[in-house]
């Protein structure tokens, strides 16, 4: 169901990486793919009628435990986003440098190494 949509988004990103010939489009595919995974992580903790997993003043503990959504996936997604943020910055930096060297973003022309 809704997990399937994540899978479709993942495959869209994967398609972008495999088929596109432009470095920037490949990077976008990468980002879409990672977003699909992040979306999946957040969905894992979804619960109908759930509340924020932060204890408010004057809230009863038992009600909080019953209603609050699982906070762990939200922490995990934050960590994953940070990591992917770093990777994206790095890949953009490499792409800029590649453009500097080759004068193009087309990977058909960036082929000094044999397959």
């Amino acid at each position, binding site marked *: 169901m809704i997990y399937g949509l994540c899978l479709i988004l993942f495959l869209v990103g994967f398609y972008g990486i495999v088929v596109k010939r432009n470095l920037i489009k490949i990077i976008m595919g990468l980002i879409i793919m990672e977003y699909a995974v992040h979306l999946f992580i957040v969905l894992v903790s979804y619960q109908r009628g759930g509340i924020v997993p932060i204890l408010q003043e004057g809230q009863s503990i038992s009600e909080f435990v019953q209603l609050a959504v699982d906070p*762990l996936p939200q922490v995990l997604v934050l960590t994953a986003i940070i990591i992917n943020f770093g990777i994206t910055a790095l890949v953009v930096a490499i792409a800029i440098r590649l453009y500097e060297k080759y004068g193009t973003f087309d990977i058909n022309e960036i082929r000094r190494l044999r397959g």
Partner: protein
Amino acid sequence: MTNLPVLFVALPLAMGFLYILLLKQRPYVAEIVSVAVTLVLLLLALSLAGAGTFQDGYLVTSFNLPVGGWDIPLGINIFLDGLTVFMLIVVNLVSFAVILYSVNYLQRYTSRTYFYSLILFMLAGMNGMLITGDLFNLFVFLELASVSSYILVSFGVEAEELEAAFKYLVMGAIASALILLAVILVYLVTGTLNMAYAAQFIQEQGMNRALYFAFALFMMGFSLKAALIPFHAWLPDAHPSAPAPISAMLSGVVIKVLGVYAMLRVGFNVFDLGADPVFLNLLLVIGGISMIIGVLLALYQWDIKRLFAYHSISQMGYVIMAVGLGTSLGIAAGLFHLFNHAIFKSLLFLNSGAIEAATGTRSLKKMGGLAKLMPVTGVTSMVGSLSISGVPPFNGFWSKVLIIFAAVLAGRPVYALLAVIGSILTLASFMKVQRYAFWGKSHLSEKKQNSNLEAPLFMKVSMLFLAIFCIFLSFLIVPVLREMILTPAGEDLIRGASGYLARVGIL
């Protein structure tokens, strides 16, 4: 004493940032400190190996440390067993040799401080992967090691290096996404991220479809990181393009820790598939194919580092195939070969770095006659070549013989035959390296032939150090040493999830 394993992560991380903070203009201090740090970590790993107790005829290490005082499954634990200690020794031994080598080799690069910072981050990431007992933590450290290695591959910022780094990065990012997805699937099904509790859940409830899917994702991700044959496309570009010490690190330890160790830990200890014929056959087939195709692709390479890189694929195939036999002997032989490969492949890459620094080329056709000009490099590379080809009395011979024996004893003579063929082809391609690089007529210019081409002091020391280990490691199959290092690692894998749970202490 109980908190010492924290240093495996904290020390390199702290030192790496210390260089950026204080030592940007003084790389020589960073060099000394890096060598000291890796030496300390190596000694620490060895002392951990000695800290275990003898049980059932081998050394049992089991070390469970909750970080921050939160016990599992609430917190993250640091967990050491025989396999961890074994891998820690491999990683820190190779890193020590590589950093010692870099002291001289890196003189021609700018911003050397960053290099040492990054290599220490990579070391911290790998050590963290080894000592953690938590799946998500494993992923985080895997990313730390991967990101550092992406940057290190592109360290020279030349066109080829950037291209290889881009390819490596995209492949690595796909692998990371798959692994993250698998980790979350395990969390979704089992409700825990702790390896031991996940293993307990799987043992009690059995595997279901979601878990099989998660395991398939894990296998794909780790195979990408280990560059096994259907996923190998990035390795022959990334490994040769990096500076030689980084090639040695990447081929020597990174693909083993990020790929093989993680795959085995997850497959055997968490998913408890050590006796599952599908999993073992998968390992056997992937290993067998990697073994043969890797060496066949290596045969016609003329770029010396590229040739070595293809051999990494082939040798990792040996390890995976031996583990896939599923017998106690097979797993021990595979791990033994992993250790040996870490040593001789780093040695060979360091040699290629010395050759490249001296002659300015990586093409075998333009070398020749180097044995006379660079005696230390020549001799150590001869040792490395003979080791990797499996010629007695070097370490590669013993591990390959053990693998072949194990294959025959496990009733898989076809794979034994494949291992023999692979070994012969390896020998052939290293004959080529020796013939064209070190013997025969020299294609170098007159001026170079008369100058002193031998590598500087620390490079020589580092290469000799690894070459001595090539011979010394043969003694790892002597009973006492075997029971201290090799058997515990193999036993911890073959005892599967129940063994792991018993070590963690939650049965």
